[in-house]
């Protein structure tokens, strides 16, 4: 059984606006699926159709093996929703919001335990939700979503407004939920978070799914690879690293880590195995004092798919230019290995 399956899902608003265009998507049982896209890509429209808030113009949505149009109530009994950008009932406390979900689902959860799990202080939990910060509202909404041990969690921008502790706790809860067997549909524009928690991602652009795979596979498909920076005592003269299979380019420049004297060799690779091949070749010819590796970030991949789609009609149409951009982004903002 799949957690979510859309079949040629389409949504039009009026004659002119095609918000979602023939979306075929499958979120597998037990996985954490990241749903990405720039503003206006159609993410919210898709989520609203998955929840039955919007009627598809064409196509269908199945959630937990049930048709959304037919079995909406049974689906909502078995899912947990953290909606984006909503105001809670102003005169109800956080605890009362959680109790509301427990009551509606006829669940036997302890609201205090759930609120403690999401890190909402007991005193805060008894204050009117209108007094909450964005982060506190997110914590409360997460507690609501967790009521009844849902088989599927739909989290729309769950980390927005959370402090670092909250983000860390969110990751931990997602891991716990997937360990329990739940599936997670994780929609976020904080790509770093998606990269950390998601098994697979789907990238939506202009209403179309332009990428759907694991982040590693997307890297490989786009040959986004990684950037290896090695600080050496002296750069050998006829260093021909570009001849190594999988190396896209190599350059030399002063700098690198300020604490390490020497010159920096910068090698861009298109596949993981090329990193070690390039490093071994360099180590045979020079003394390597320091090494850093930056994988192409999800942000770089995201830019590559969405920019390439916008500029040239497809991610492969102008791959080299897109890759250059992606590598630059990876070097600026990617995680060091």
């Amino acid at each position, binding site marked *: 059984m799949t957690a979510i399956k859309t079949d040629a899902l389409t949504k039009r608003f009026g004659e002119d606006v095609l918000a979602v265009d023939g979306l075929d998507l499958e979120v597998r049982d037990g996985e954490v699926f990241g749903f990405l896209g720039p503003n206006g890509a159609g993410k919210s429209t898709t989520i*609203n159709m998955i929840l039955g808030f919007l009627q598809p113009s064409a196509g269908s949505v199945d959630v937990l093996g049930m048709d959304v149009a037919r079995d909406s109530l049974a689906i*909502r009994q078995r899912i947990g929703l953290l909606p984006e950008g*909503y*105001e809670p009932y102003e005169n*109800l406390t956080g605890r009362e919001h959680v109790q509301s979900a427990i009551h509606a689902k006829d669940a036997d959860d302890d609201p205090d335990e759930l609120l403690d799990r999401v890190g909402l202080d007991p005193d805060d939990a008894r204050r009117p939700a209108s007094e909450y910060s964005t982060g506190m509202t997110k914590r409360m909404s997460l507690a*609501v979503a967790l009521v009844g041990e849902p088989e599927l969690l739909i989290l729309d921008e769950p980390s927005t407004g959370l402090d670092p502790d909250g983000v860390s706790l969110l990751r931990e809860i997602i891991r716990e939920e997937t360990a329990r067997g739940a599936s997670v549909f994780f929609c976020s524009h904080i790509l770093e978070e998606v990269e950390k928690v998601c098994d697979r991602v789907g990238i939506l652009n202009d209403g179309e799914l332009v990428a759907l795979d694991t982040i590693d596979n997307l890297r490989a498909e786009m040959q986004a690879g990684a950037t290896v920076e090695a600080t050496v005592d002296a750069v050998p003269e006829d260093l021909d690293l570009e001849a190594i299979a999988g190396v896209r380019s190599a350059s030399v420049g002063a700098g690198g880590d300020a604490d390490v004297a020497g010159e920096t060799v910068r090698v861009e690779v298109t596949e993981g195995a090329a990193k070690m091949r390039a490093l071994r070749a360099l180590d045979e010819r020079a003394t390597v004092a320091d090494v850093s590796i930056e994988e192409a970030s999800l942000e770089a991949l995201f830019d590559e798919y969405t920019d390439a789609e916008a500029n040239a009609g497809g991610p492969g149409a102008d791959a080299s230019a897109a890759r250059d951009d992606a590598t630059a982004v990876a070097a600026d903002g990617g995680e060091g290995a």
Partner: protein
Amino acid sequence: MSFTTVLRDDFTNTRRSYVVLGVVAVLTGFVSLITYQVAEFHEDAFRALFDVSFFFFLVFPLILVPLTYLAVAGDRERGSIKHALGLPTTRGEYVLGKYVSRTAVAVGAVVLSTAAALAVGVGAYSGTPDLVRFGTFALVTTLFVASMTAVFVACSTLTKKRSRAMFGVIGAYFLLGPFWLGFLPVVSLNAVITTVADVLGTSVSDTTRGYISLASPTTAYLSGLEPVYDGVVGTGEYPRVTRNYATEGATELYQENWFNYLTMTAWGTVALAVSYARFRVAELG
């Protein structure tokens, strides 16, 4: 289960609002004041209900506006509806829960204000207040309030913008209240009927006018209070009351009390049914 969840949440959320405290306080205050003022001219406390009924007819629906116009439209605009409908709650349960919750608050205000009138009646009038008359008044007023709340919640259900909801509710109040009754003679339903009949070169019978004039929940409310003055109408004891409820020679259905109660019930039921039919397939994104 979910109907009660919506009802409980909305009632709790509403009763903690300053708006509700204001509604109850204003209503109770004015009803007490009217009852006290009327004591100067009449011996029977129930006579004050005649004046209170006009206050209810004209002002209470306005007091209901802030209590009702955001019932659904406010949730849609704030996005709170995603909390309620993200849970296993049908749209029908949601609308019904909202309606019953808001009606419960409004009826609470009616009961409290009627009790206040009764209390003032005990102290300020020479005669002992007639509990049956006060009870009848509270019952008919409850039906009226339930009907108007349904119309207003229906207006709120039909739109997702609070400004449109406000416009709809105020418009419904004006149409069904002052316009229908003919509060301003030249801007009234009767004037429109007369004008249309003149333009078409025809006339409208008194019977037809009678049916039309009592086809609004507000006019039906005033007419439906006749049992409160049982035994008084036609005796000459209270001429103003007699003028309003003279039923001598009544032969038409609209002159029966049950017709008034049916009118109020029909308005509330149809308004909610129509709004639900639209809301059931509404786009909530």
